[in-house]
């Protein structure tokens, strides 16, 4: 007797109460199906936390193929976070912020020295809608913010109920957080973000090659796997 395995079949994935069909192949990785589902449902909120679950409550292992994971035709899968605690809010960038940032960093640094900007937004909320270019000195190996400018900046923020959401600065070559960067963030509360742009920001105006880190409760910086973990453009 010849047993024919179904190579291509449909499953259903549920998100936010909405069910959509997906065609899968038996050799396809579950991770690919998961990414496809995240894309089809257009999920931008912490997609890295999402997993696929069967109706028996078990996790569908992302490292397996569809066949080895035991997915069956017409099976209904639930797309939900693996960790359920409400999720953290990502920062939302106003449309002009990225281009303004790179514009300032390039004009000021001229491809030969570091520069820094601060992303600010209303204190209440996750919106980033302004790029502050501080008065500073800089060289190929570092920058220093002017103290009097910083004092005036804090007063201005307080008066306008705004806050610094992210610090952004450039490096001459690779993007990384140096010991100085680790020790001297402009804001030191848990969750604060720091971004380092490589090559004095002379490359593409995006965070694709940037180092993005988040300050942890223990005072250490954790590099994020991708900027989308904390920022949506």
């Amino acid at each position: 007797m010849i047993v024919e395995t179904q190579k291509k079949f449909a499953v259903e994935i549920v998100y936010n109460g909405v069910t959509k069909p997906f065609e899968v192949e038996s050799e396809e990785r579950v991770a690919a199906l998961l990414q496809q589902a995240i894309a089809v449902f257009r999920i931008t909120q912490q997609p890295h936390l999402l997993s696929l679950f069967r109706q028996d409550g078990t996790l569908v292992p992302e490292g397996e193929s569809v066949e080895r994971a035991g997915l069956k035709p017409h099976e209904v899968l639930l797309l939900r976070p693996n960790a359920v605690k409400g999720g953290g809010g990502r920062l939302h960038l106003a449309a002009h912020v990225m281009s303004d940032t790179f514009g300032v960093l390039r004009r000021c640094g001229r491809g030969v020295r570091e520069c820094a900007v601060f992303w600010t937004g209303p204190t209440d909320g996750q919106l980033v809608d302004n790029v502050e270019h501080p008065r500073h000195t800089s060289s190929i190996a570092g920058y220093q913010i002017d103290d009097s400018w910083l004092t005036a900046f804090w007063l201005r923020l307080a008066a306008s109920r705004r806050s610094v959401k992210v610090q952004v600065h450039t490096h001459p070559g690779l993007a990384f957080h140096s010991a100085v960067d680790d020790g001297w963030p402009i804001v030191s509360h848990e969750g604060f973000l720091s971004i380092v742009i490589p090559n004095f920001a002379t490359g593409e105006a995006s965070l694709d090659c940037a180092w993005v880190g988040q300050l942890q409760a223990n005072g250490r910086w954790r590099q994020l796997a991708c900027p989308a973990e904390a920022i949506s453009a």
Partner: protein
Amino acid sequence: MSAIQELDRTILLCRDYVSETATGEQIAFGLRSARVLCISDMRNLSSHSGQTALVTLVCLLTRMGMQVSIDIPEVPMLGPQPPLKGRLLRSALIGANGTLISAAAVHGEPCSEPDLIFVLGDTVIGDRYAWRLSGDDWHGEVSLQAGTRSSRWTASWPVGSMISAALAAAEAFKFTILRLPFRDPADRVFFTPSFSCGWSFGPLAVPAGPLDLGDVDVISAGAICQAALYVLVRLPGVSMRGRVFDDDVTSRPNLNRNMLSRVGDVDLKKVLVIARECGSRFQLEPIAERFGGRVNSHKLAPRVIVGVDDIPSRWAVQRVTPGWLGVSGTSHFSVSSSAHAPGEPCCGCLHPVDEETGANPIPTISFVSFWAGLALTVRLMAEALRTPFHRNRQHLWLAPLRMDGEHAAMWSPVAVRHDCPVRCPLSSRNLPSMEVHRISAETPSSERGA
């Protein structure tokens, strides 16, 4: 500014889908500009369930910042309706004007051109289209109708009425958010009106007489536990004793979902708010400490309900809970609710991963948090009535936005995990794979409430 602060978490949740071109102020204005009219006649308000449906709906709507007007007769309250004050229903509702969210009004004069109309039961309003709330002891529904096809509220057991109110509040929110610009128009599918939907947690008996839940500890005095206690305090004949653990104070961004809190409670310890609002029914000792550390050494009650966001805290509670544990949480527009009796997979098996999100605020909204608390209380009642949910229903994942969807609710067993962070007895046994397969075989292809 206070309105923005009070709606901050709701605005944050709207940001999941609303375009970046909309400012926080514009989103808040969108919520606050919604005008909702709630109508009921005397007959539908002659039952505790009818009154509870109306009060819960008004509370959920105002906590989203909406402007509510009520067209109802004055009637005496048939049971406690905290955080409302007084003995007359209409006066108490009007008295809530500006007290739940500063900028959310409750008017006694019917709005002439409402955006939405909600009607209780079989109240006659002519041929106008309106969302009708109906149901019975444990079942609630909402449907958009012109004319009257719904039944009158008569039950004294109010769980179904609170379900219908939560369903209705979701429809009001969907109407409102659809007036805002979306980042991606395709996302509007999540906010499509559910023109007719209902929900029941399953066949459960109404207690024949007084029911003493005994000692129950409440871990967290936040939104989910406030919702759970909001429900519990409305259940006729139910009594309990216990402690509420939380070190936090009420802040303005809590008001969008903390069902027992009022504007005047800002800066007051949350445990004191709960003790005050539930004090007429339950003996709840407020313990203004975070569960953990010194308090961790305290012996917990035989029944514990948990509404904390922090996953390691859930694990800590599970490790020292001697008996039954109920857990609820929310994630954006979804709800997770589970129960863990001795001998069952624990909450560590269900939530084995901590989420490192730093100190970012959590997006929330009134009706989602309320569903989480409601589900928690129903599980507690089922446990107390000695009719706990079947193992196939140990976990419920609920999507309150689209309760008309075939898979809006997914019940499932909790699978035992070898790597359970709680190291519960089942996880350290050497048979989880067999256990998982046995449970899987019992799982229906699709289960949801009637």
